[in-house]
């Protein structure tokens, strides 16, 4: 183990330079963020991820945000275990009818001010699952959405761009 740790000290980091916040995401969010709320939060956000019906592809890329390449925490963004500790809900999937109530309750358990980021094509408009008897709709059909990050799944870089836009706005 000591050898590995030593190498980690000597070798250059693999972490990528920070991407520029996405312009379209910025525009979407700028209209919605209240300046006072931003002052209160500073440049730090606690994120609670909620899978409301995803195929789990989006989760894989959200996970990747924590690896050494993207290193989400350096931006003051971190994943928390409870909605009660969260500023942001990161929601994936078409919202299934079987998950609708759980999502609503998670949203209600999140203290104000809060933001909802819908991740993936399914979260935006149900993607390929549109029209199914088992699907309630995109995330915005169930809780108010502040920002959409498209993609199937969106790459970690696109996710980062979107989340940074949330911080910078």
């Amino acid at each position, binding site marked *: 183990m000591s050898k590995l740790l030593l190498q980690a000290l000597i070798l250059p980091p693999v972490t990528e330079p920070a991407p520029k916040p996405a312009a379209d995401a910025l525009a979407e969010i700028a209209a919605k963020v209240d300046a006072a709320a931003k002052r209160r939060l500073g440049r730090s956000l606690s994120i609670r991820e909620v*899978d409301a019906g995803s195929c789990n592809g989006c989760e894989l890329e959200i996970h990747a945000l924590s690896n050494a390449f993207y290193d989400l925490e350096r931006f003051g963004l971190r994943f928390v275990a409870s909605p009660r500790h969260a500023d942001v809900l990161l929601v994936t999937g078409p919202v299934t009818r079987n998950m609708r109530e759980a999502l609503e309750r998670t949203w209600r358990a999140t203290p104000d001010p809060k933001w909802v980021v819908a991740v993936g094509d399914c979260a935006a408009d149900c993607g*390929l699952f549109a029209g199914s008897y*088992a699907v309630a709709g995109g995330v915005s059909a169930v809780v108010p959405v502040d920002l959409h990050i498209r993609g199937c799944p969106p790459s970690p870089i696109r996710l980062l761009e979107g989340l940074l836009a949330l911080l910078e706005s």
Partner: protein
Amino acid sequence: MSALGDILHRGRHVAGHHPYPRVEVDAAGWEDAAFQTADGRCTLLSLWGEVDGVHMALAGPDAMEIAVISLPCAGGRFPSVGQHHPPAIRLERSIRDLYGLEPQGAIDERPWLDHGRWGRRRPLGAATSDAGSGEAYDFLPVEGDSLHQIPVGPVHAGIIEPGHFRFTANGETVVRLEQRLGYVHKGLDGLMQGADLGRAAKLAGRASGDSTVAYATAFAQAVEAALGIAVPPRAQWLRALMIELERLANHLGDIGAICNDASFALMLAHCGILRERVLRAAAAAFDHRLMMDRVIPGGVAVDLASEGAAQFRALLAEIRARFPALVELYDDTTSLQDRTVGTGRLDPALARQFGAGGFVGRAAGRGFDARSLAAPLPYAELGFKPVTRSEGDVNARVWVRIDEVNHSLALIERLLDGVPMGEIAAALPSVAEPREGLALVEGFRGDVLAWLRIGADGRIARCHLRDPSWFQWPLLEAVIEGNIVADFPLCNKSFNCSYSGHDL
């Protein structure tokens, strides 16, 4: 004659089902198949319904023999398989939820995927509408002194899929775990009906995103078997390459995540780097990190250019340079071994009974690996050998993954060396009559089964996809018994069952 051969001999052969036989039987023949399966002479590969009948896919003892047994259900009923063979219970409950066919004699009559929230009952059968306001679920009663219950989910603490776990514990020790799943049921079977092959292939690739290549390949192979088309060899090799890359990425992620659940974050950090390298190489070569929609019926959608191949060779070199030190670290860290050795032990007899695939089965002595099946994927030419361990604990499941990472590295190298030149896709012919196909493909988690019928209009009439998790989830309930609650995340991660693949 083998037990399966005997069942086939007595059934009525159905034409147009490939590459394995399908026979129609009567209720007595169906029950006989259930008995043979319960006695261990056959392995249940899957059980599914449609409007007017039920089907089960069975394998002989060495899986060299595979067949589908069908029972027309004129009266909307079929003899329950689950009453004799518990692995069938959840599949049967799902058939009832979706199609309204009644398993007669069933032990467990509770709904499974249907939470009373769809606004309709039997959505794929004789549907009726209802309020859709949800209904309480009767968890199994637990009685005894000093027991307490811990409900967890459906929303979990980590970045994972939703499901509900009901623990009953005596102090720290788990006495029973009961799962309730179905939260991410998206109605895949319903969406498949009437879909054209292109759309259906995309849907199949989203049954469980982490196994998108395995699903897309199983679906494509079933279509190709049904239509009787020969896929160009280059496409078969590229499919195997993508399947092994998917396995590599997921196993690396899992090894890190399992150690992380034992509070050893260093492994997660290092394995996370290697996993990311795999995804980046995949994106560079195939233009998608998870390789979604890259396998299509008839072949593959993108060719491998020489720069892509060079990326993969560099990837192999990097993983080979770094992975051995991580394995050594895993093996030498006693605090980690203390958590994984002997934890969540799966009885080999249960693994056999449930036909547990993937690392769950192979860590408990069940050697089945769908890569050993004959063509169409080129594994025989690559010198493939399944990896098995016998201890059945978390440690064994980690080691199967470690051994498979190493094996996949060797397979990828041989695939790059040997990939033949030529076309990457064959055209799909149109059909005049219904055709059926079945395929079994080894994804990272285990064998994915795809069965489908293409109608005379060239669209999907029925498609059933069976995730390996169907037979692994119930075993997680079994292995956690007698372990401490705090070891559940570790056991759960070592199983890494799919919710989406199971919930459909």
